[in-house]
């Protein structure tokens, strides 16, 4: 690293707090069982490529069994008074708080993201999400969706690998609060925290069959969403898969919510406080290694401050600590899988091939594991792939603008519409920009903030439906 001022001593978090079994089964009807066909797959730590455990690969019969268990549990669960359902969910929230350190370590091992993020962002938000929706369970008649809104039935939920436990919370908490039962499939590369969550459900005394966890790959997910016995599909993941799911559920009774990709614009005006904006840009695209659907992956900077901003940004990026996710000083961890790393690499290469100028932070990357140095591209045009396609990695595309109208036009020039950022000191400009940006979440003078009370979700091809807040109930109620 150039201009190295500080040497950091290693500050590793202990992994002794988490006890990972050599193998895990599927969690169906309150107990773990092997897959009917006996298939298994390995889950590895992306930072070291060490095999963490072997988990069951659910097939057709397992999907059938899980849906049947959820259906059987639905009668009792939905008939339970809201006050009682609430207490189960409150218990889950409390147990998650108690086991937060263990789950944070587990998540970091399985996902590759820094312990600082799982400890300070993922786990607190997970517990908060359950706590929030627990309180709704006995107040549904006051949610503005009719005096006595009914649950849908069995929810089939498929979640991604970038925030495994948080996405589980976003799916399961509102589903349970509204009286639905759940079959959830975690991502293929990050199955462990969902399996630990099954144990949390056990500790909470949750009636069997209310939550079922099926580990597996895309084929398992496709079987689940296509199963005629489910009433609701909730998916977070890529836009391509989201479209396939929308086709699958067409013509059925299944209610669908999708939270998909994005190509968020982070817009910096010339009056923005540069240092704060730089922190926001870094948080926007390098948080979670850029593997965030609402990442601010396009930086739109007003031409007059481009040079100054980029100088500051590069200086800041050079200080990011990339490496061991278990180290408490690490800012940027490992890419989740070899496959994802290949995708990021290919898109970054296309940026160079199409004529954009590449700059990567000067950092040493570990020898084993999947790594990508924080990278930015300048001289990016709107036609470049790196300006149009979701990279889902720590790669920022820098574009410039002169007028607010131009910024709006460029920001909205995408089929996505999940997030946007605005950096300016002028209040009226913030509100005017926020009105014109076609995005579900607009962060002004901040970025990548989340809260269980705050609805989250996209416009256009970023999906539909909202998660979080009162709005998040609608996805699980017959309204």
């Amino acid at each position, binding site marked *: 690293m150039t201009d190295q001022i500080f040497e950091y001593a290693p500050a590793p978090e202990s992994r002794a707090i988490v006890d990972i079994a050599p193998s895990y089964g599927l969690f169906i009807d309150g107990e773990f069982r092997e897959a009917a066909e006996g298939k298994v797959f390995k889950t590895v730590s992306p930072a070291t490529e060490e095999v963490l455990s072997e988990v069951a690969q659910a097939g057709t019969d397992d999907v059938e069994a899980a849906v049947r268990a959820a259906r059987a549990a639905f009668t009792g669960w939905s008939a339970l008074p809201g006050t009682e359902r609430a207490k189960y969910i409150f218990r889950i929230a409390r147990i998650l708080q108690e086991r937060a350190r263990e789950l944070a370590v587990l998540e970091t091992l399985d996902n590759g993201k820094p312990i600082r993020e799982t400890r300070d962002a993922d786990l607190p938000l997970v517990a*908060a999400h359950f706590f929030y929706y627990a309180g709704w369970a006995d107040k549904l008649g006051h949610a503005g969706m009719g005096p006595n809104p009914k649950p849908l039935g069995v929810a089939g939920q498929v979640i991604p690998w970038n925030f495994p436990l948080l996405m589980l919370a976003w799916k399961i908490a509102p589903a349970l609060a509204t009286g639905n039962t759940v079959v959830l499939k975690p991502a293929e590369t990050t199955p462990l925290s969902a399996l630990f969550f099954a144990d949390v459900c056990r500790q909470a005394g949750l009636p069997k069959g209310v939550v079922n966890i099926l580990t597996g790959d895309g084929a398992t997910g496709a079987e689940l969403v296509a199963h005629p016995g489910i009433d609701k599909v909730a998916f977070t993941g890529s836009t391509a898969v989201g479209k396939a799911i*929308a086709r699958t559920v067409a013509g059925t009774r299944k209610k669908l919510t999708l939270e998909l990709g994005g190509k968020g614009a982070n817009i910096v005006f010339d009056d923005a406080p540069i240092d704060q904006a730089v922190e926001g840009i870094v948080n926007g695209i390098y948080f979670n290694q850029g593997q965030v659907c609402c990442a601010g992956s396009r930086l739109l900077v007003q031409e007059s401050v481009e040079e100054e901003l980029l100088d500051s940004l590069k200086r800041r990026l050079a200080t990011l600590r990339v490496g061991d996710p278990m180290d408490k000083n690490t800012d940027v961890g490992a890419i989740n899988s070899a496959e994802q790393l290949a995708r990021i690499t290919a898109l970054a290469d296309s940026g160079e091939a199409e004529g954009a100028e590449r700059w990567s932070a000067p950092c040493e990357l570990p020898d084993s594991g999947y790594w990508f140095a924080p990278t930015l591209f300048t001289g990016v045009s709107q036609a470049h792939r790196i300006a149009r396609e979701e990279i889902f990695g720590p790669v920022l595309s820098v574009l410039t603008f002169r007028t607010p109208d131009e910024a709006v036009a460029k920001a909205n020039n995408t089929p996505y519409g999940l997030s946007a950022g605005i950096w300016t000191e002028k209040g009226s400009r913030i509100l005017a920009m926020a009105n014109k940006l076609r995005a579900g*979440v*607009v962060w002004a003078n901040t970025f990548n903030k989340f*809260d269980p009370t705050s*609805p989250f*979700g996209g416009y256009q091809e970023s999906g539909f439906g*909202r998660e979080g807040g009162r709005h998040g109930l609608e996805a699980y109620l017959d309204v």
Partner: protein
Amino acid sequence: MSEKSANTEKKPAKSEAAAGRTKSAKAPAARPARTPVRIDVLKTYKLFVGGKFPRSESGRVYEVTDSQGNWLANAPQSSRKDARDAVVAARKAFSGWSGATAYNRGQILYRIAEMLEGRREQFTSEIAAAEGLSAAAASAQFDAAVDRWVWYAGWSDKVTQVAGGANPVAGPFFNLSTPEPTGVVAVLAPQESSFLGLASVLAPVIVTGNTAVLVPSEKAPLPALSLSEVLATSDLPGGVVNVLSGRTREVGATLAAHQDVNAMDLTGAASDAELAKELEVAAADNLKRVRRPDAAADGDWSGDPGISRLLAFLETKTVWHPIGV
């Protein structure tokens, strides 16, 4: 009001209530001998696209008859090109209409109700002919439609507070969620209720700031085509509503596959589950918001509609800003 002359005559049969324009499909109906015979000036029904009244670019028309099979008019049979033109017009109108104040949109919708009221006889006759209703029953449908329209007009500046609000996040942030129109909405109007059903699906789409491409009832498009004339004279900006008569399947398929349509209301495909599914599959290509036909809700247009049709075509935008000094 080109057709009201006949209303001064006696109305011998209920199908004749179609404002004297009812003709046999084979030959013009015999009139009572009277001198001098006045020949009615018939109306050429046209599409409504971008505030103008074009014919179908394809030059096609199809016969529209009353419930007895008597010829009423030749309605334009919209083509794929007409559908694309309508989407372009709707997209062009979106920024102005969605950017208008809620008060302004509410007044314009209310103005439409005022204009409708003045054409009561025309619409009542068209509804009677289209749906085979008595004059009294058609009049009741018209009344309910106008009342429904006024009801929705009032929602323009209320839905934001009902569907949005402040979020108490756990941190020093201002956090506000607001509903916003989703964009261009393709609306397949109900096949059976040619006017009350039509008003009930169109008003909730546009009152919140969306723009619409409307495909009216295939067999009974005339009330919708006449509604265009009201829309054109009510300060509604051109392109906010575009009306494409024709074959529901043909026009619907083009709109469902169109990449610049944001949402689709499939109410008009209620009786054809296969078509509804096909359109929903096509709509998935750019993840249109799809409102499926809802047998329970869509059968009876006289009940309280609730606000689900408003919410179906709204997005929720959430804005964060730090709080500090």
